[in-house]
């Protein structure tokens, strides 16, 4: 029984961390219409920076600053935000494709750098030697994981509330206005490039936060954690859940992570041994089919974005509708 519960806690922790990431992507893609092809790079920047800043000294690479944990996590968020700032500054004024390609490139280059630069983050061996916060007080067992889960859940709720507030605020309205009709927003004196940059950076900071928590959870991060797979998973979560809907984003995260875990378990349990080598391939085909299938048959996702119709505006248009 305790085994089942501790597995559920483990599962829910991972899913909640991913849900935070999906919320960050939702701000970019769902609310602002920005395509982030390199989700994993911003997630990874958060994880790496948190572990390097908060970890114990390591021979041969950067690290060992042993910074107070919340500050280290904040550092991870800043690292992701800085990366987003540079990429955004270069691409957000151009046509949409450029951001997609450049962010995809960021992810390739980030993984490549982490794998090769041993002086920076340990190369292929990854970053070790990170002590999870409050470990001395809580130990390493079930209690620790439970407390960690509660903290992650709280952060998830806070992120959700923050984004919900943002969506209904004038800024959120502005984001949707730019997404729907950039020129119209511009004609009202708004600066779409600037607003998009702010939204892109904010979303990436949230991705960095998720990455930082992920790194903390495992107390270890390596190039294996920043493969493009994660980008595809997080997209599938958002598309299935419903782009533009924060509740949908969280729902999608739990659903897809559940399906991913279950399919991996089923394949390893029931598939013949010679097929096991191809478990990854089968799972990739599944996730690709989920993305393509949703876009073909239900592009709005299971929990679609709720259109905020401003009724005042509607009646006004009716009144002046004649000319």
């Amino acid at each position: 029984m305790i085994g089942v519960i501790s597995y559920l806690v483990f599962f829910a922790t991972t899913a909640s961390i991913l849900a935070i990431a999906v919320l960050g992507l939702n701000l970019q893609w769902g609310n602002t219409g920005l395509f982030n092809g390199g989700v994993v790079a911003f997630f990874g920047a958060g994880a790496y920076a948190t572990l390097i800043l908060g970890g114990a000294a390591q021979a041969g690479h950067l690290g060992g600053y042993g910074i107070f944990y919340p500050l280290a996590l904040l550092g991870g968020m800043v690292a992701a935000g800085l990366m987003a700032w540079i990429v955004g500054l270069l691409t957000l004024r151009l046509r949409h494709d450029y951001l997609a390609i450049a962010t995809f490139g960021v992810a390739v280059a980030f993984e490549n750098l982490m794998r090769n630069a041993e002086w920076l983050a340990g190369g292929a061996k990854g970053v070790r030697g990170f002590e999870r916060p409050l470990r001395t007080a809580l130990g390493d067992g079930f209690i620790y994981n439970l407390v960690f889960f509660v903290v992650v859940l709280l952060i998830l709720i806070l992120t959700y509330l923050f984004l919900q507030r943002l969506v209904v605020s004038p800024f959120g309205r502005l984001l949707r206005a730019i997404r729907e009709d950039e020129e119209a927003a511009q004609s009202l004196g708004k600066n779409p490039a600037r607003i998009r940059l702010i939204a892109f950076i904010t979303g990436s900071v949230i991705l960095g936060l998720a990455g930082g928590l992920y790194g903390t959870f495992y107390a270890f991060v390596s190039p294996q954690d920043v493969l493009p797979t994660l980008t595809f998973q997080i997209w599938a979560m958002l598309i299935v859940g419903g782009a533009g809907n924060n509740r949908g984003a969280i729902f999608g995260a739990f659903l897809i992570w559940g399906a991913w875990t279950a399919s991996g378990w089923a394949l390893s349990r029931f598939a013949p041994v010679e097929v096991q080598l191809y478990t990854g391939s089968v799972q990739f085909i599944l996730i690709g089919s989920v993305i393509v299938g949703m876009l073909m048959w239900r592009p709005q996702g299971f929990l679609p974005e709720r259109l905020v119709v401003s009724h005042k505006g509607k009646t006004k248009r009716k009144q002046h509708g004649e000319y």
Partner: protein
Amino acid sequence: MIQHLLDGILTGSYLSLGAIGLTLVMHILRFANFSHAELLSLGAYAALVCDALVSGLAPFLAVKLAPLSLTGSLILAILVSMVLTGLSALLIDRLVFKRVREKGQELSMVFASFGMALIMRNVIGLIFGLSPELYSRDIAFATVLSRDPLILIKPDQVFVLGAALLLMFALHLVLSRTTFGYALRAVAENPSLAQVNGVNLQRTIMAVWLIGGGLAAVAGVFYGISHQLIPVMGRDLVLPIFAATIVGGIGSVYGAVLGGFIVGIAGNLALLILPSGYTPSVPFLMILAVLMIRPHGLFGEARA
């Protein structure tokens, strides 16, 4: 140095072929097609199968054309593969991209293309296995062009470069001398105006997929000849091809050709200053450099 330059030109020849198709699709259908590189793998593997079939049916074709390691059957297989890959590109558009296009916005297409790339890459992996394949198991000896500095070149590489240039020249003639070429350029400029003038948009889109797929197939085979066939080759090729289109300017065929060579040469010259592990990052650095200096590429124009 000269060796790296030569290798770069050879890399450039298949990158260019891949980039031409991609830039056409990106210009006319207006989306970054992340599954384009998978058409290269598809073409390469289709040629592998056709090669085996042809040499089984007509063994006299399976003789090496000295000094190349290529056989007559492989050349025939390339032609068949061009057609097959072009048709597959068309089929994928019909089955997936067309529907997504009708349902959603431009960026849904980008997502869909990523999904398709995942599906194609892994289906190829399931069918052919994850281990590398080769067109010819024989060792192709390189000819020594010069001993000091040592410069080596394989006859196959000369063939690849020559064939690629020939194809590009043929495409140039089609684009600049035929009514079809004018129609294609007109659609790229302004789809609605082209339609008003009697250009069949659907047929032009079909032609773009056929050309793009056909050239991708050749590019894939040439990659396979120069390196080896692996199911994940698309993953390694997608960024360099995108870099080539961005360097050349999205929508410009000549830009794509030049961009392909520039990216190929830069990737190989980078070996002089960077450890080889960093090679996959070079295309990204080139994209960043272009976006900083000349955001619309060498021949591109601003378009929302």
